[in-house]
């Protein structure tokens, strides 16, 4: 039996700043994962990934990342992706700075 599809978000880095960004339902990019589109269907995810990748003059390194729904919207399930929503742990730099 094929593995069941787990929810995902589409993420990348912004071309100019390199900051982590997420693809929204409106096909824009947000700096906040909570505004991302949570993808629960594999076929839909593949189409959305192609659409996101087409925006190559604004973004770099588009990929699907594991995510789950929370009260505030989509959130991470893995520590690497969680770090991308915050910034490094040794200084208050990156997103947590704002």
């Amino acid at each position, binding site marked *: 039996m094929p593995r069941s599809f787990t929810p995902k978000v589409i993420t990348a*880095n912004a071309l*100019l700043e390199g900051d982590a960004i997420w693809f929204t339902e409106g096909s824009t990019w947000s700096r906040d994962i909570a505004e991302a589109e949570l993808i629960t269907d594999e076929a839909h995810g593949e189409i959305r990934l192609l659409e996101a990748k087409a925006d*190559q003059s604004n973004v770099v390194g588009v990929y699907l990342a594991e995510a789950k729904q929370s009260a505030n919207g989509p959130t991470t*399930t893995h520590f690497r992706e969680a770090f991308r929503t915050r910034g490094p742990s*040794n200084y208050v*730099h990156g997103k947590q700075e704002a």
Partner: protein
Amino acid sequence: MYVYNDFDEAFVRTRVAQFRSQVERRIDGSLTEDEFKPFRLMNGLYLQLHAYMLRVAVPYGTLNSAQMNKLAYLADTYDKGYGHFTTRQNIQYNWPELRDVPDMLSDLADVGMHAIQTSGNTIRNVTADHFAGAAKDEIEDPRPVAELLRQWSTDHPEFQGLPRKFKIAVTGCEADRAVINAHDIGIQVVRNAGGEIGYKVIVGGGLGRTPMIGKVLSSFVSKVDLLPYCEAIVSVYNLLGRRDNKYKARIKITLHENGVEKIQELVEARFEQIKPLFGGIDQQFLAQIEQSFALPAFKTASIDGYEAARLANPAFRSWTDTNLSDHRADGYAIVSISIKKHGATPGDATSAQMRIMADLAAQYGHDELRISHEQNVILPHVHKSDLHAIYTALRDVDLATANIGLISDIIACPGMDYCALATARSIPVAQEIATRFDALKLEHEVGPLKIKISGCINACGHHHVGHIGILGLDRAGVENYQITLGGDGTETTTIGERAGPGFGADDIVPAIERLVLGYLDLRMCKDETFLQAYRRLGAAPFKDILYPEKARQNAA
């Protein structure tokens, strides 16, 4: 120090202009990321977890004060006020914006610096003993050869698309402070029976996924033959090295799969072919380069004041006991400035700290600074009469920590706090170990101990050659840390042995504490270092300390 000639200057300026145009074309959409990526990597620009990262080469770890001041300027102008010195004697900026990078490279070119070949499958920054030119035990300053190699390898048309990256390190003495046995090519200045100076050439060392100690390809290559010999090695590797599997592409695997004898034969054959083509031009360059590395004019002065200050000030005495090394000139010392105050990020220096270090080098240190692969900054030429003034100035900017070679002098890669390849964080582990042993006030009691931490299998943190190595991994979605024991990155290179199952993020620092306190009970006397005790006793008692449950089961 080597100063750019017109050719170097024009070359670097041209490269900056090319990259500026490439960045513009990427931003206006004329270049896709697939097209642009090779260009940015050629110029040291990576994309990491949170931002771009620019890796600037510090060739053979040598800087003057103007260069260090420029690094501080870059940190303030384009970054967040600091830079990160790496285990390959480079500096990395963690927050540049794409649009600013051409300006950063242009500013670097103003002081004879660049970021060329700090990435990609090319010959990378040539590293050297950070005490080069100052060490008492040195046969010859290895930096002229390192500079020759830098010039030869920069934009070398044959070697821009090697099977994998290629790292060269050079040392001028038997004592190995450049980890030459863990490089693709390690070069050691030696003297033969006739007293002639030449080079021992070691090939195929490396850490990473498959750690290997380099093998001696030739025990003596004469000075005139070194460059063609190195070219022959890289040339043979370029043809023979595997391109089908990234993990088997480094020369260590080529050497392992083909055997030293075969590589020797091929290198000799290639050498015979290309040697006549050099025609002595490399030796003319080398002679010019050697002149620019002439020793500074050392001064003579009384050191009575220094001795008196040592007696009067215990903190100064402790710093001089820990952070100084023997210098070749009478009355001089080599100062290692620890940029690892307890709890600080290993390798990070603020712009203010960089400026103070630059000022001290200009005022007291014959205008020279070095970056060590152990992520500290060195003032290689300091007269002892100036040490107290230096210490006082360093103390004001948190740079007077007396911990060189001790447990808190930890090498740590950026890990998952920054690096896109990392599988776990390194920095917080280093911070916690240093803070913990500072609180215990045991650091000096424990004595010489090298802890090295990598946040992934690629081993930028040199964990395999740490007396205690820590490797951060992702185990089923949580950070997990494996400990290796008994590694050694000096001339007696040893790859550490894995101790057993890994520890969770909350358990790794207590495990290290248990291990180090256990060592204090195991050592024969205060002078027996951790590594000596490990070599005498073997791994078993240390494993019992790390895994008490298992030890109890075995005893039952």
